[in-house]
């Protein structure tokens, strides 16, 4: 095998650890995202359970104040940036090319690069734990608490740089998926014949492109305040500017978190209702409208900041307005179920659960849009319950629907239906017990982000119930774990289309060949596999006459991601004066440049000895 420009030989073997480290196959990258997200879910879950253990009783001393403050900061940051977003990325990566009849994404190496930046950025942030500098300023890091005056330790530096590293990967993925979806669709697949999940991914990618740069700017400005004594957000400047910058990003971010799940649900419901999605065009348009309007509601996170009546009133109205397209989607999903022939397989249970839980989340959000009521809700457990209903009841349930739905495609095996149902019901009981308790305790005045409370405040019973619910919730994931392990080993063989679904990913084998489609299909409708007469797709097991040539793996994405992350680490160590940090930054900078050079000049396909299958 030819060694190309790289110093090391370019690994080309289809199996083994090197094949995973150098993969640029969207399917493998999807699996990497899913496995890594599961690991961080465990971490974030432990952080949650520790908090719930501490809050189960008044005046508890299981966990001290500083630790608790780090726990809620990291639980939020982990779940948002290291779990839900990457789990969404897992779904985009694995499924989008398959759904549009493509053989990979537009920029496969950039795709791998996005994954490695996620992994390394997440590790960088969590590494701070071993340096006794676990971030503890809250997941939205309000100024001036994050400034050097009030947070001397490097905890905030790890937070800022971990986010910048991960965010770079996310932004790259945003561009990648826009280009992929707009350019690599199979012939005949017009935009209005794309599955809803593809649409929602496209919209999410645009949201990423427009929102993440704002966050990047805010983080860089904070970095300059901390490292170089600038004054963007400190006293003498206006700390509220941080809040504006954060939430201009932060609100679209929550739509980035929910739209993919909505997309999954929009494709799962028709499959198990045995009828088309009701109002496809409206559902797609509603998603686009929500994304657009999502940039106009950010200051509803700031109703108590004292912005003045005009700003407060305007944002209250825009926030209420965004309920309209959201409601339209819910009604269309209901109409999809209405008149159907409903099969309650596990993916369907989670899709229905999504609708009901997101309904509660969304309606409680609508309640906060009433500004006077928000004055009693803001920074209390009422808000915490609201966003857990939308993020867990919404995004997580939707992603789990996707997991159960696409597992057969990824592995070629079916998951156990009974264990799936047990997972669903145990999880739903635990989840609702935990968060309904939190709605109530918030209404009785319990603020958020407090490591303890006294018995006289009257919150103990509800907190105990919430903690109990959290344990049940945690146990339900053990059921999922058992199901995953058993099914991967001994699951029933799935075949190409075990659900008798309509979209293109079900036209090819399970798992797909590494080239996905031997012959790129021509599409004539929204439901290619359901429309017999319009079906021009070759049968799934057709052998390609000539196996398509796929781009070769590459290690430069990994190396570049590594170099960037280590340079960020060097910056943290440097603290303006430390030579060791400066050395790390310089050497990693050079390595990064070398990687960019290698990446740019290596051939996409290595000529001899291309492996046939994976």
């Amino acid at each position, binding site marked *: 095998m030819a060694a190309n420009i790289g110093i090391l030989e370019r690994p080309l073997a289809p199996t083994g650890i090197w094949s995973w480290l150098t993969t640029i196959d969207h399917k493998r990258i999807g699996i990497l995202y899913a496995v890594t997200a599961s690991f961080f879910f465990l971490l974030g879950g432990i952080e949650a359970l520790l908090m719930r253990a501490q809050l189960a009783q008044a005046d508890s001393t299981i966990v001290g104040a500083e630790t608790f403050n780090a726990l809620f900061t990291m639980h939020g940051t982990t779940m948002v940036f290291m779990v839900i977003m990457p789990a969404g990325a897992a779904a985009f990566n694995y499924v989008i090319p398959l759904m549009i009849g493509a053989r990979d994404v537009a920029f496969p190496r950039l795709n791998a690069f996005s994954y490695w930046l996620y992994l390394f950025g997440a590790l960088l942030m969590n590494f701070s734990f071993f340096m006794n500098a676990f971030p503890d300023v809250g997941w939205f890091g309000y100024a*001036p608490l994050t400034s050097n005056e009030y947070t001397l330790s490097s905890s905030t530096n790890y937070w800022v740089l971990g986010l910048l590293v991960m965010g770079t990967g996310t932004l790259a993925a945003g561009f990648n998926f826009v280009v992929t979806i707009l350019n690599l669709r199979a012939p005949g697949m017009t935009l209005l014949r794309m599955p809803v999940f593809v649409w929602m991914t496209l919209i999410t990618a645009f949201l990423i492109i427009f929102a993440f740069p704002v966050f990047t700017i805010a983080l860089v400005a904070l970095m300059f305040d901390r490292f170089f004594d600038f004054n963007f957000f400190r006293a003498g400047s206006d700390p509220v500017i941080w809040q504006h910058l954060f939430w201009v990003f932060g609100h679209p971010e929550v739509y980035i978190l929910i739209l993919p799940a909505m997309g999954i649900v929009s494709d799962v419901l028709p499959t198990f209702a045995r009828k088309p999605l009701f109002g496809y065009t409206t559902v797609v348009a509603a998603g686009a409208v929500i994304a657009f309007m999502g940039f106009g509601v950010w200051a509803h996170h700031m109703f108590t900041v004292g912005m003045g009546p005009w700003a407060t009133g305007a944002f*209250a109205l825009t926030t209420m307005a965004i309920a309209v397209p959201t409601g339209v989607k819910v009604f269309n999903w*209901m109409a999809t179920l209405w008149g159907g022939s409903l099969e309650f397989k596990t993916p369907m249970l989670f899709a229905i659960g999504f609708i009901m839980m997101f309904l509660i989340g969304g309606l409680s959000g*609508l309640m906060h849009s009433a500004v006077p009521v928000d004055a*009693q809700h803001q920074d209390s457990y009422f808000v915490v319950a609201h966003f857990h209903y939308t993020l867990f009841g919404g995004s997580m349930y939707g992603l789990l629907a996707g997991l159960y739905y696409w597992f057969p495609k990824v592995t070629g095996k079916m998951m156990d239906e009974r264990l799936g149902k047990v997972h669903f019901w145990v999880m739903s009981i635990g989840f609702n017990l935990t968060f309904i308790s939190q709605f*109530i305790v918030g209404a009785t005045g319990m*603020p958020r982000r407090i490591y303890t409370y006294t018995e006289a405040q*009257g919150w103990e019973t509800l907190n105990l119930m919430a903690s109990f619910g959290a344990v049940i919730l945690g146990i339900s994931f053990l059921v999922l774990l058992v199901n995953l392990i058993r099914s991967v080993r001994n699951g029933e063989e799935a075949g190409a289309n075990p659900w008798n679904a309509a979209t293109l990913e079900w036209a090819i084998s399970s798992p797909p060949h590494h080239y996905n489609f031997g012959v790129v299909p021509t599409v004539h409708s929204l439901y290619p596999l359901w429309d017999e007469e319009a079906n021009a797709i070759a049968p799934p097991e057709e052998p390609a006459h000539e196996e398509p040539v796929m781009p070769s793996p590459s290690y430069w994405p990994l190396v570049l991601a590594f170099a960037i992350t280590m340079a960020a680490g060097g910056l943290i160590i440097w603290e303006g004066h430390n030579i060791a940090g400066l050395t790390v930054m310089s050497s990693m900078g050079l390595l990064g440049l070398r990687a960019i050079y290698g990446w740019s000049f290596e051939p996409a396909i290595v000529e001899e000895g291309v492996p046939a299958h994976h």
Partner: protein
Amino acid sequence: MVPFSKGRSTILASALTALLFLVLAACTSPQSTFEPRSNEAESVLTIYIVVIAAASFVGAVVTITMIIALIRFRARPGHKARQIHGNSKLEIAWTIAPIFVLMTIAFPTIFWIVGTTREPAPDAIEIKATGHQWWFEFEYPGLGPNGTSLYTANELRVPVGREIAITLESDDVIHSFWVPQLVGKTDMIPTRTNKLQLFTPNEIGEFWGQCAEFCGSAHALMRFRVHVDSLGDFGRWVRSMNSAPAEPSPGSAEARGQRVFQLTGACGRCHSITGTASQGRIGPDLTLFGDRSTVGSGILDNTDENLRAWIRDVRSMKPITDDGGVAFMPTFKDTLSDAQVADVAAYLKSLILQ
């Protein structure tokens, strides 16, 4: 698989409702937003109930439709799904209908926001509240000796039936002023002055508040009280706050305590007691401390034991991180003897209304 039979779902619904009432009955709090004690908190609760009703209405419609759909359209032999793609009329209808529900929330909201712009009543009590890590400072401009300001800390006193106009500032990071039974919160932000929503307490009593914006390690322990007194009692308090305390009898614990406070412990460098040599403004004002319900910004009952423990070692009572160099009260366990601490406590407890 049949998810719910009608019988089972009715039983489940009733059980859940019963559980809900049980829980609601069991859970009351001195910080509950559902127990208003001011005109403002009452009108906010009214809007709250309207909003809950609107949300519940929509939630009920969707939930009931869902339950019916799940039962009626479950897969059965011979049952075929209707291949419908959409219905424009329905789309228009369910885009427009929610707007009417939203109006029920929008109108009260806008009226309330407009209401926040009005000027305080001419006889409103004006107070300036400043957030510190991790205590609340309260200043009453014009009510102090010779028309200067009256200062107190952590326990606000206001008269019933009068409008209270509080402005909010911060000395360090962002805090938030929240006393749920009286008024919704507004943030205390450094570099600006915010106005809390005007409110008129309508019941005499003691109401609990808490900082509601994460402000560092001891955020959970930054609480406060609002004492709503009769107008007469409030006036007596103001007069007493502006008078020098009675001289403690010579040789008493209080006298010894006053010496430790002013000389040995140099407490007066940070703490003020009106009419005495202690005039520091770095920490909470301690005038009439003996009448306070709590020690340490609303976190402990004002007992001898708690007060002594607080003076002896503040850092074992509140998680003060020196990360960032917060100027917080030092510990005295190594510089003052137990007897001296007890004397100071006795002195502070002797500072009561005359």
